């Protein structure tokens, strides 16, 4: 090896030692991951309309609901069912500095399609109701699926009333 190369290596080592000693007095993580701590369902979009949500907190059940716009208190909205009714779940995450803000959407999968009330696209949150009824949808943080929230959405076929 050329002496100049050895000299360069030695110089870099010495400079590095000095630099580390002077500058890096404390431990530093340059790319720390910030995880999602909370997922909030802001609204549900049906067509061009946005419907507010509220948080239902009961001993045996909890999660977001679509607010009935016709009532002045928090009550679950029975969305009029029509064939192939679709809607979009709108959410936000906290903290705002989360490294990965993405969530995935899930609903229970029944082995019999006749029991399936609705489906949801995993990545977009697009819900499709296959029949009238109430379905629950979990939103889970991609960086930690145990960080989750839930929304129940009810549709009702008023044509029978």
């Amino acid at each position, binding site marked *: 090896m050329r002496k100049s190369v050895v000299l360069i290596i030695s110089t870099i080592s010495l400079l590095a030692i000095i630099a580390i000693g002077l500058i890096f007095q404390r431990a530093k*993580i340059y790319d720390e991951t910030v995880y999602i701590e909370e997922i909030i369902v802001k609204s549900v979009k049906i067509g061009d309309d946005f419907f507010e949500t509220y948080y239902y907190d009961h001993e045996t059940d909890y999660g977001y609901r679509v607010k009935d716009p016709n009532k002045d208190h928090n009550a679950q909205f029975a969305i009029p069912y029509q064939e192939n009714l679709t809607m979009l779940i709108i959410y936000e995450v906290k903290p705002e500095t989360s490294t990965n803000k*993405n969530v995935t959407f899930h609903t229970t999968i029944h082995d019999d399609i006749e*029991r399936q009330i609705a489906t949801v696209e995993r990545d977009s949150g697009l819900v499709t109701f296959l029949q009238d009824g*109430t379905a629950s949808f979990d939103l889970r943080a991609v960086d930690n699926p*145990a960080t*989750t929230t839930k929304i129940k959405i009810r549709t009702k076929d008023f044509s029978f009333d």
Partner: protein
Amino acid sequence: MKKRRFILPMLVPLLVVGLLLTSCDDIIDPTTTDPTTTDPTSSDPTPSDSITDTTGDVDRGELLRLEYVSGLKEQYMIHEQIDLDEVNVQAVFENDSLLVTGKDLTFNPLVPLTNTIGVYHLEISYLEKSITRTYWVVEFDEIDNLDLPSSIAAYQAYISEKGVDKRSEFMDRTQGYFVGSDNPWRFFPEIEAYDDDGEEVSVSAYHSSSKIFEKRAGEYVQLTGDDLDNVVTIDEFASTYHFTSAAIDKTYRLTVRPYGEKYATKAKYEVSFEIKVTQGYNVTKQDDLLHFDNYNSYWDPYRASKNITPINISGLILHNDIKLKEENIADGFKYLEGDADVKLTDKDYDRVIGSLRDNNDLYRRTIGAGEHFVFNGNYFNIDYTALPYVVREGERIDEEPGKVISHFSIFKVHGEDDTAGNFTMKNLSATGNANRTEVGIKSGGGMFLKVNKSITNFYNTIVKQAFTILISENEAEKIIIEKSRGYDTFSSLLYSWGTIDFTIKDSEFIGAGGPVIIADHYDHADDGTGGYPSNVKVINSKLESWVFGQENWFTLVSAIAVVPQIIALGVGLRVYGTNTIIRGGMTEDGPAEKFNLIGVMKSGGAQAPTSDKIQGTFQIDETVGLDFDGPFMSAVAPYMPVEMPRFQSSGGEVALHDGEKLVDASNQPIIPYEYTNQNHFSGDYMNVYFNFGGNGHLGIVFGLADYITDY
């Protein structure tokens, strides 16, 4: 005056006698059999206006009335059970009042009815007084449909295929859902019910109608009569299913719907789910984990305070995510005010109260010889992000945080005496309280699992943000980590503390605050022999930990001084090829070199880098592995200067540094890349043997790749 003096003393005894005479009728003789005597234990008390409650030697006087306090609803759903133990009544006495709970009350009827819709009256009695409460039993006005329980919805989400980001995807999603036979399992569907105003009704109990099908040769056969009773006991009001040993290793499909003609036919009133039955205890909450622990006496007072009787379990199965909370940890694990080893004048007093005591394991199990304990997570998550930290390493008091190397683990398994048991932990994810961070207190975070003197299979797991995910100790015979993922740990992702067979297979471990693996030779002699060497085997796995060398771990183990040497080596290696052990990274302060620190092999007696003579191997697939006693190190053993590092790529090329340049094993100069246009080293890894003046070497495994920059 004299007359008054005479009369008054006479009046006093007369007054006393008079008082005695009038109170005679009020004295109760508990030994008489007179039917007018009030006996609080009598089932048919005779009304009396003069009952005295002397419970607990307190004379409360006459019982005046009962006042209802709580515990009963005005409305129950049909078939909902009423828990009379929850009823509270205020007994109002002349001199006092007493809150009386259900177990001390009598009710008529003994079991309140809810089997038909209607209005019911419940008489509540205490001593001789009674009150009546009225309740209604109602039908659901409207059930939209049934849905699988929310825990099953979570299970399905966990086993689903993930998108582009696979870090949260289980590698084996086909294991199925297990139910234990040691205790009942509750399967309570989501019942979407509403009243006639369309308001949501939360249903906490219902009368279920169940069908059980046994899977035989691929077909489902419904079980009835004795066939059904032999495998399971069903409580259709509690929605519980207690499988027997006859059901173990078999697969069942459970189908439930609400009882009643109205719900008998429509598909959306029914839910169905497939399960496999196995030995083990069904766990739904943190306190259930206590049955795993058969070692820690710290739990004894906690168990007593919560009336938890230890059960000898044969395995453990989760049915829920479990978030560990500090309030559910026994006091013995923590430093508390008033403890003998905590003083107001301690430099860490503001941090130590409530912190965890080092060198403890929250849930520890001794496994007997021949025993195989299976901890099946059923794909659920254990979250210990809220756990306190270790503030004192051992008993050392530090003025500033960030100096602790934690030895606290959430779970530990230890073989019994001189024999090794078998332990499997599988299908589980965990989230810890110590990610790779600048926050110093997280150096006191919890390790997830420690194993010792057992044959361990860590299968299909995902663990993030632990101090270290798994440490296998000196007497652990064998551990295989398979189809598992680990990310973002404060310290190393894995640790072998003298484990002779430490295998990582089909797995992925990325993003430690230090190396992916630390592998120690524990308790060796000065000449490097004896004790417990580590032999690490990596098969078809991705291991990666890009560090700048300034992370907390390097400070903790006093390795910061080695970093400039590593970077210098990386720079120097570029003379001999396009590949090297460093890469150009970008920080908040500008560009800086980083390196992929796969493994560190050192003496188990030291926390800081040393070059004591040790044994051990680090083998990645079929490549050339690090081996202190291998052909390369044996061949160059006599070469001097011994202080210069020795290089061995996974492709088999070797080099030593003679103080001026790199030479090969025959002491011939290695020709630089500029003259050959060929990399001297090949392969994906570089084994480097460092000497700091001892009689041996520190072994480090780096990633080896073409030099690139992130910017």
